[in-house]
Every structure is written in C-alpha cells, then in structure tokens.
C-alpha cells in the first residue's frame, strides 16, 4: 500500500443546476496539499463554475465539498477564505484606487477584526511578507503606483500576489495568463511553479503551451463533467480529449 497524503480538498458528486441548466454534473475531484492541479476544458465546460462552487459564490445543488477534513459546502464566502482557500478571478479583481502595496496589505491582513485596523502601521511581519511578495511578482519598483495604473500583465501578477498574500493553503487561479503575450505567460508559469512548496494550486486555463510548461496533473472538464484525468502527456495522447477539446483549440 502506498502512502497517499490526506487530500486538502475533496469534491464529492457535486452538481450545480442553474434553473435546469446543469453547469456541473456529478463532479468528484481530489486535490493534494502543496501540489499543482490543472483544470482545462473548452469554453462553457464549467471550469469557472467549479471555482465559484469551491469558494461559495455558487452553491451546489447536490454533493459535498470537504476542505481539510471539514465540510465547507454551505459556509459564508469570507469564512471559506479564512479557512484557507483564495481565488483569483478571471478578470483581474484588484482594488483600483489603492496602491500596489496597499492591495497586498489588504490581502495580507492576518487579524481581520475591524478594530484591529485602527492603526496607520500594519504589523512588521505583514509588511515584510508584502515586500517579499512584491519581489516574487516582480512589482517592487511599482509598489506606490495605483493598481488601476498597472499594465494588464502586471494586474494579473498583482492579483496572484494578493491571493498568495492571504497565505491560503489552496489557491485557485482562474485563467492567470488571459491576455498575456508568450513571454509574460512563461514568467507566470515560473511564478506559479515557485508557489508550490507552500500552497496547493489549482490552475484553470486553456492555453496548451502554458499547461505544458506547468506540466502538472491535469483534469479535463467537458460539458460539466470530468472527461479525463492524467499527466499532460496522457491528456495530449487521449483520443477523446483531442476530439472535444484539443482539436477545437487549434481553430
């Protein structure tokens, strides 16, 4: 018997029904701590809905979600985040009128009680961590710029940085390379790989070159159902996946 680490997140038979339209049907998924998982699938396959369901923005019609051995299916959104799941949205969800540094500090606030915020100086540990993250995402020289003034790629990195700053155990990154050129995409891949020792990461994307660079265990979603799971090479070789997805991606 091999030793399998206890899963960090388990979806069991999750179904999401939007007034008769089944966005997800009977999806079961298991993620391991500090590991990478890639979720691919054509547009409308239910990738973002899956993310929304995990973080409590969409409630499953049936099924159960377990995070670190506790059921989180019905918890309020901010409570799910506090347990350790944080999500990057498809369109960058930044706080546009705050500086880059303040964006990270808001994300990195450890004690989230409002009365603890009545100070002009964040704790030293939080500032140090924010500086580290600035370094990681390569925005150190942009720290005082308003987030709305960043270039598109920088916005994506900042949001990844914010998700990292929450120190969540599981990061959901929804299309982190949307709108990026090849060079930026490669940098993003390196950035994500550097996070793995500390966080489990679920990446949603449909850029195959990006997925190949990440080269992690991959799940293919199609019409709200899991079609195939395996390494990137397995997925590439699978005839069914090629038919529904890879063939179409080359259009």
């Amino acid at each position, binding site marked *: 018997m091999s030793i399998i680490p206890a899963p960090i997140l388990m979806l069991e038979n999750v179904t999401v029904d939007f007034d008769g339209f089944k966005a997800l049907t009977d999806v079961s998924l298991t993620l391991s701590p500090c590991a990478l998982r890639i979720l691919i699938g054509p547009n409308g396959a239910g990738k973002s809905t899956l993310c929304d369901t995990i973080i409590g923005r969409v409630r499953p019609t049936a099924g159960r979600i377990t995070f670190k051995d506790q059921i989180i299916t019905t918890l309020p959104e901010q409570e799910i985040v506090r347990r350790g799941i944080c999500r990057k949205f498809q369109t960058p969800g*930044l*706080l546009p*009128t705050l500086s880059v540094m303040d964006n990270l*500090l808001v994300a990195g606030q450890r004690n989230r009680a409002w009365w603890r915020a009545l100070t002009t100086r964040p704790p030293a540990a939080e500032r140090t961590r924010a500086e580290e993250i600035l370094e990681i995402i390569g925005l150190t020289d942009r720290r005082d710029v308003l987030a709305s003034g960043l270039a598109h790629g920088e916005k994506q990195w900042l949001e990844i940085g914010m998700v990292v700053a929450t120190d969540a155990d599981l990061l959901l990154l929804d299309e982190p390379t949307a709108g990026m050129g090849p060079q930026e995409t490669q940098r993003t891949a390196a950035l994500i790989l550097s996070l793995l020792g500390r966080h489990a990461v679920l990446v949603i994307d449909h850029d195959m070159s990006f997925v190949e660079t990440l080269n992690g265990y991959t799940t293919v979603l199609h019409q709200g159902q899991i079609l195939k799971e395996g390494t990137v090479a397995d997925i590439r070789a699978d005839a069914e996946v090629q038919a529904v997805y890879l063939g179409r991606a080359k259009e």
Partner: protein
Amino acid sequence: MKVSPRLLITAAVLVLGATAPWLISSYELSLLGRFLALSILAMGITLIWGEGGILSLGQGVFFGLGGYALAMHLKLEGLDLANGDMPDFMSWSGVSALPGFWYPFANPWFALACVVLVPGAFACAFAWLMFRRRIGGVYFALITQALALAFATLLVSQQAYTGGFNGLTDYSTFDNYDITTQSAAVVIYLITFALVVAVYFGLRWLLATRWGIMLRATRDGENRVRFLGHNPLPYKVGAFTVAGMLAGIGGALFTLHAGVVSPALVGVVPSIEMVVWVAVGGRNVLWGAIAGTLLVNFAKDEISSALPSLWLYGLGALFVLVVSFLPNGIAGLFAGKTFAFKREAVK
C-alpha cells in the same frame, strides 16, 4: 528649511478662521458659523460617499436628530418642570403635561450626549439592516431619501411633541449662559471652528489608517474584499455611523447659530442639497467638503436675497455643471495626476 505650500495654506486658514470674529461683521460671522456647522455634516458625506461609495440622500435625518436633541434642552431651560411648566408650543397645542421622553433633556449633559449618540445609534442600526442584506447603490439612496421624507412628515404631524411645522425656536440660555449676546456668538463660532478643525484632522487620521484603506477597498470591490476573507459590513456600517454622528453635531451647532430647528431643514430637499455641497467641493478630499459647503451656502445667501425665486434653478444648474464638467468638484481643479487615476477608477 523649505516649508511646503500645503503647510502654509493650512496655517493661513487656521489663523484666518480663528481670528474671523475680529475680521468680519457680526452678520457675516453668524453666516460663517452656520455654514461651518454644516461643513461638519458635509465631511461625514465625504467619508461615506467619497471614500465609502455610499450615497445617502437622507443625512438631513441625522442632522435633525442632533438639532432637535439640543433644541429640546434649550426649550426646557429656565422652566420649572416640578411646577408643571411646559414649552410654549405645547400649551398652545393643548398638551396637559410634559411628555415623559422630554424630561431627561432638562439635563444639559444628557442632551449633549444625545446630540451625538441618538443619530449615531440610529445610523448604525439603519446601516446594519441595509448593508447586511447587501442593499446598496441607487436602492440605498432611494431608501434614505424616503427616510428623510418620513422623518420630516413625522415631525410636522406630531406638533404637540415636536413643535410641528415651525419646529423648535425662541431659546435664550444654555446651562444658564445667555446665548443671545454678541460675545456668546463669538464663543459659539469659536467652538464651531474648533470642532471643524478637530473633525477634519480626526477624519484625516481615520482615512490614513488601515480601516480607511479597507473602506476604500470596499468601495473599489466589495466582492474582492469578501473573497480576501474580510467582512465589509463593519467598515460600511462604521462609516455610516460616524457620518450620522457628525451630522448630529452639525445639526446641534446649526441650531445654536440659527436659533431654530424645523422640519424644513431636515427633509428631502435639504438632504439633497447636502450632497450637492460635497459634489461641488469635491468628494474625494476632505477640504472639498468644507469649501463646497461654504461656497454653495454663501452663494445661496447672495442669490436668494437678491432674487428669491432663482435659487433652486441655480442649485440645479450648479449640480448639472459640476457633474458634467467637474466630476471631482473644485478639489479636482487642484489635483494632479493621481486624481486622473482616481477618476477612471471610481465608477
């Protein structure tokens, strides 16, 4: 050593404000005092609207609560309550005994506490009920407007307890201090000015804290904040409560200056006017609230004494002009590039 222009201007304004009683006529001083009282309320609107993105068209309610709390005490000054004395308007309305809820207001300290606490508590409860249900934007604005209408209507209809349409007026002392003399006018002005300065610097501190940053974060992306694990509720409710308290303080000071508080000062139209002051001054900086309040109100005084029927049109035109051409108000004229960023970001 180089002194920054900002510091120079601040010092000049402080000196001018503190010496105003000896620089301008007593009539001008009474206007300035009134308008400064209103600017305390306006800074509260900057807090909720400019920084928090919450548009309230009902700040007149909190202004009125503060104003009436103080006026109730002033009406009871010098009356022998044990002997069954009552404020004049109650006897005219045929009330036989002073209503129970009036009694505690005979104590000046109780009344002063109520000036802050009643509007604060009401604003807190109201905001909590609204924001907990995630009511916001234009719906929130409409509900606050309805609140202002209901409050003014209630005041008018309960004439025996509130003085009805005429409100509460004709008072002469506070804690046995004659407030009708010229020297008292100077004292009241200086108290008002000191409070304006205190509120200004207090709010500047609050906005510089992490709390202030969280409030702006909530305005920028309430959902983003929620999905970073924060609860936006305490920031929005807190800001609305502080704005309510400031409106109450403004209302009480205005009552002292004007010698009257009445439903005409707290209803729908005045509540909208309050937002216009801040829009004209610039809702993204605190001094914009003070500048806008003084400018619009002095203009109102000039125009309505020259051509009384013209003022409402003037106000409407001013609002349209500011919204179309100066989205950041007067303050926007002085701001550099940082403001250009802000403008595109604030929807």
